[in-house]
């Protein structure tokens, strides 16, 4: 599975309140959440709006810190984020991303600039970025890759539901 996007650099510990503030969580449709993504962090929001799409967020450590809100992943996807590469992720965000088919990679990308094209090969653990820089990472377990490949958990739930119907 290969994914690409244009680099949007953010810092450490980007928390889920920053990704999507609590005051917008009473709705969960992608259009609404995508509109309000990073609303309290204008420096990120402005870059996100001006860069070509799709976006590959390149983050420091601790991306997705805080609340379990799946709205954060829905909001990022709606804002055309196709890939997130961070030095580390907080665990519920990491799960939510995989369960919604949004690729997340733990890697330390240096020398990448905003707007650089970033391309990741998820099975082989290789990232190509900017001027032919190559980074390696440990691919995620096969079971999790399977979830990603099928676009998230919904595929498996649909399958279970139709199998049940066949009985």
């Amino acid at each position, binding site marked *: 599975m290969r994914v690409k996007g244009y680099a949007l650099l953010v810092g450490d510990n980007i928390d889920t309140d920053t990704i999507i503030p609590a005051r917008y969580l009473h709705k969960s449709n992608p259009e609404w959440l995508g509109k309000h993504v990073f609303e309290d962090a204008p420096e990120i929001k402005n870059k996100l709006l001006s860069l070509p799409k799709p976006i590959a967020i390149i983050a420091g450590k*601790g991306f997705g810190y805080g609340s*379990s809100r799946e709205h954060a992943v829905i909001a990022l996807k709606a804002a055309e984020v196709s890939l997130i590469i961070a030095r580390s992720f907080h665990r519920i965000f990491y*799960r939510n991303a995989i369960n919604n088919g949004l690729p997340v990679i733990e890697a330390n990308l240096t020398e990448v600039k905003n707007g650089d094209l970033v391309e990741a090969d998820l099975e082989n653990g290789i990232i190509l970025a900017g001027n032919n820089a190559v980074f390696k990472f440990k691919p995620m377990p096969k079971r999790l890759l399977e979830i990603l490949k099928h676009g998230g958990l919904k595929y498996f739930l649909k399958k279970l539901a139709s199998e049940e119907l066949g009985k």
Partner: protein
Amino acid sequence: MNSLALKILAKHVVEAETLEPGGLVYAKVDKVMVNDVTGPIALNVLKETDAEKLVNERKVKAYAVLDHYSPPHNWDAANAHIKLRKFTRQHGCVLFDVGSGIAHQLLVEGIVKPGELIVGTDSHTITYGALAAFATGIGSSEAAYVMATGELWFKVPEPLYVRLIGKFKPGVVSKDLALYLLGEMGTEGALYCSVEFFGEGLKSLDLSDRLTVANMMVEAGAKTAVFPYDSETERWLLSYGVKPDKKWKELKLEPNIEANMEVDLSNIEPLISEPPMPTRVRHVADLEGTLVDQVFVGSCTNGRYKDILILARLLKGKKAKTRLIVIPASIRILKRIAYEGILSILIEAGAIIGMPGCGPCFGAHMGVLGNYEVMVSTANRNFPGRAGPPSAKVYLASPYTAAAAAITGTITDPRPLIKNS
């Protein structure tokens, strides 16, 4: 096998390549909780995938708690409540309606049992580890998956052993311990770990204290935080009508275990977390004099009877100099403070009492801040924009420090006030 979290997880495994930390396992879940923010997404997923028909209380016991918008502040929240009520009726889930309290209090009032594997669509689900359970936060899609199958995948956590020794000094409580640990660990000190507590210092942490500590370990990235089963756990469970099971006595760590961290409770002083994140921990003394607009005592971290009692003791006969919002974590706690006269002390002191629920902690209603305002809160998070505009500041502190701020109108070391009260 030393880790208590692993011991509990292993009992629930249905499929595993390995039980080594970092390995992936599928496990049978005992209980799943959703709330009114994250629950509606889980319901959408079940509907969209047609998996709603698979939801069955024999697979897993499900709880829906309407606590974040309690009572609802707008049409969407009210409609989400309608949806959750209907779902719980159709599928035999337990509903806690608005005004009942916060999930993380309601579930420890006799529902969570030691040794269980519990997931919830709220990061502070980790709180239940105080009752020697394996509890962890998950997302909404996977809550849907759990409701339909009774199972979920878990990465086996690395244990992080914390030995507690000594006793708290007056004016210092478990919230200060939680903040101390966060200051030491940082945002990632416990990432993916199970934080496991042991040592003779546990004797000075009652169950209410343990809930506070377990609750905040998620701010250091922890997957779960586990306290051993002991006479205090038993006392708490009995008080909620839960009959102890002999097997629960095994839920403890070996005494000779090598600690990753050791904390002498007698060395801890009143601490406070300053924005922009909970792990930014300072001594209260360093921030003394900072003007405070609002004090909030409540939340799944410190909205329990003991926390409100601490506030009332310091506040008795005085008037709060700040806006003071007090929200008991459950209806049971509200009733108790009403019957014991604590409520009158608070009202006389000028407190605004809210319906049991999450209140302003979540930043949606019931006491959000305005531009550049400052709040001292007993809750758990202080990210920019968490409870008001990004310019507003939230400081996280113990109920003692919160009471001191309400009395003086500034951030204040509570210890001198305790001597005088």
